[in-house]
């Protein structure tokens, strides 16, 4: 293994690590990415195998505490109502993500000044817009231009079919006079650049063997490796090192595939380990200069953890909804209740997302992200024969507000297989979120009935989905004030001038949309700022 110093060291080969590597490619700097997991050839995706559903409950679970693979780290979620989920390997969580691709909206960047909650971002939607476009092009995004919920933009590919389910629900929204739009998706509606268009099998979380889903294993990484970016797998970073005299990061210590600990030196270190992995790594990087964790003079590393708490409501229709035909998550999205309205009893808002139906085993076991089997016996037969095929559902995806007590810390006992302390999540739902969830459930029922549902199914309890920790944000937030934020407006740590963070941990607020289009747009923006400021980068 060649551990010669590099110019740029990126930690994590997921959505954000890939995007910033692409942005920095043109600088001709020597770029190395260290990734704790491996490449996953598409022949190994469960979606290629007959017993694919079993994999969802074992080695291909989205929950690292279920998978327990060598490359995973355990997460203690005992003090949380939501557990973080991910994939650790080349592509990161875009291996098992569902490809729903909404952008954040202009008001998401100004929640403090508009609605008196959260904080304003130190940049705005219009600054990010060109980077959203660039990333949509690189990823292969499909959708319909002209969505009145956004300033004008047009996805590069036409929309994927919304299907019978989407059309039925759309008519319900029209009946109510509420906003809806075909979802933007990181899924190809037409063949593109050697990738095949979506085949509508609906097993998107089990690895998209068609290559239609824009995981970075299919988009950025092949391009980057061809261009000479070195991607070293099975390389788990234990600690980021600092020079105690200059305060600069000098590189990292990592556990290599050979089982030994190596030092890798670098001029510039970029952390892209997702909203739980990044604060974990910083908190594990203690030194005399940073006794509370690297770049943590503000005390904000790990604080303000946000998810998108969600719940689901389903309607039973008279005809089969064909919800199994098409990508799992994405058909239509309503943002009718996205912006604040004081009459609703909460601030900010939520989206109503129409998922398609999940596979039979997952439905029988309680649904995606839930462990709560449906009834057995005659009732089971009745549900599977006469309810399941007739379902169309909506999920209420809420905006979580930043709250300091929701946080990532280090577990005093739990470690990964290399003995590195594991993260512990402390998280509870805020009252504002609970009010949103209740409001959203009621509106979802209304619109399902308007669309023709004969009966409504809800869980009827106050619980959110347990494995809804898909989106992990806020734990190293952006800001102009070094006392209240971890990185500046372009991702550079206030405390360590050659250390950058580019994943969802830098979000200031969460919006009520899936985050990855914004995470990657931000990473491209940060790459652009690094290039613009290259002469004075470390001043």
């Amino acid at each position, binding site marked *: 293994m060649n551990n010669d110093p590099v110019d740029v060291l990126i930690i994590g080969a997921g959505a954000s690590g890939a995007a910033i590597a692409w942005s920095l490619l043109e600088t001709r700097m020597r770029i190395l990415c260290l990734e704790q997991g491996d490449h996953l050839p598409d022949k190994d*995706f469960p*979606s*290629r*195998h*007959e*017993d*694919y*559903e*079993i994999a969802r409950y074992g080695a291909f679970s989205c929950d690292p505490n279920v998978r327990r693979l060598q490359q995973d780290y355990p997460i203690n979620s005992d003090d949380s109502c939501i557990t973080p989920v991910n994939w650790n390997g080349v592509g990161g969580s875009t291996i098992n993500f569902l490809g729903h691709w909404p952008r954040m909206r*202009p*008001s998401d*960047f*100004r929640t403090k*000044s*508009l609605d008196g909650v959260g904080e*304003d*971002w*130190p*940049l*705005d*939607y*219009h*600054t990010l817009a060109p980077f959203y476009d660039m990333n949509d092009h690189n990823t292969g995004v499909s959708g319909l231009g*002209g969505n*009145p919920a956004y300033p004008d933009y047009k996805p590069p590919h036409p*929309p*994927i079919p919304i*299907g019978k389910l989407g*059309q039925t629900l759309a008519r319900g*929204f*029209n009946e109510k*006079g509420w*906003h*809806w*739009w*075909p979802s933007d998706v990181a899924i190809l*509606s037409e063949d593109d650049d050697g990738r*095949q268009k979506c*085949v*509508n*099998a609906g097993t998107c979380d089990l690895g998209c*063997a*068609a290559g239609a889903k824009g995981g970075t294993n299919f988009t950025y990484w092949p391009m980057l490796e061809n261009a000479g970016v070195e991607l070293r797998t099975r390389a788990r970073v234990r600690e980021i090192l600092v020079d105690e005299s200059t305060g600069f990061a000098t590189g990292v210590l990592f556990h290599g595939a050979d089982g030994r600990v190596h030092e890798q030196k670098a001029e510039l270190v970029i952390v892209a380990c997702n909203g739980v992995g990044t604060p974990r790594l910083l908190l594990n990087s203690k030194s005399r200069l940073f006794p509370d964790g690297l770049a943590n003079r503000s005390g904000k590393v790990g604080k303000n953890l946000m998810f998108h708490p969600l719940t689901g409501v389903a309607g039973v229709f008279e005809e*089969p909804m064909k919800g*199994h*035909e*098409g990508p799992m998550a994405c058909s239509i999205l309503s*943002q009718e209740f*996205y*912006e604040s309205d004081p009459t609703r009893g909460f601030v900010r808002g939520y989206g109503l997302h129409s998922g398609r139906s999940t*596979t*039979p085993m997952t439905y*029988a076991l309680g649904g995606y992200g839930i462990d709560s089997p449906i009834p*057995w*016996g*005659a009732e*089971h*037969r009745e549900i599977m*024969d006469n309810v*399941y095929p007739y379902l169309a559902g909506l999920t209420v995806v809420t905006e979580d507000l930043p709250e300091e007590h929701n946080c990532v810390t280090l577990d005093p006992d739990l470690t990964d297989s290399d003995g590195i302390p594991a993260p512990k999540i402390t998280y509870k739902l805020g009252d504002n979120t609970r009010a949103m969830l209740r409001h959203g459930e009621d509106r979802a029922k209304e619109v399902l009935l308007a669309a023709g549902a004969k009966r409504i199914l809800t869980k009827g309890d106050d619980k959110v989905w347990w494995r809804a920790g898909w989106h992990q944000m806020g734990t190293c937030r952006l800001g102009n004030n070094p006392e209240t934020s971890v990185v500046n407006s372009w991702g550079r740590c206030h405390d360590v001038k050659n250390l950058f963070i580019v994943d969802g941990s830098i979000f200031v607020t969460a919006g009520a949309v899936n985050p990855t289009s914004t995470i990657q747009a931000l990473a491209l923006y940060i790459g652009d700022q690094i290039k613009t400021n290259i002469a004075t980068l470390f001043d």
Partner: protein
Amino acid sequence: MSEHSNIDPQSPLDAILDVLIPANPSRNIPAAGQLGVATFVTEAAAQKNALNTALIALLSRAGELADGITPDTVRQLETELPEAFNLLLVETYKGYYSRPDIRALVGVGAHPVHPAGYEVASESPELLNELTAPVRARGPVFRDPPGGQA
């Protein structure tokens, strides 16, 4: 793994499984026991201690029940041994629905294995236009505060 070999797949387990997921004869859908899910469950029990212990407890209690295996006695097992019962239920659903032949019968398609999939027609531009017309007619629904760097 110690005791799993004591479990005979032809035991009352088949009967319990048939109660958990009954057949639908009108559509030729077999019950879980008929389909042979007991083999899946006992093989899983060989790998998982907790399931193995649960199975032994459930089967030994089932053997004591005078009325044999009926929906009522299975309900009794659920009430008396809830955790063990839940483990068996989860494994039964896994074993049953991981069978491609069953997936094909459950009333929706089988979620085919890649690269196979479904032909789903794209909506025509006219249909999309018609559906989105009321949404567009209401105009922009976002707030766009004064921008720039905060």
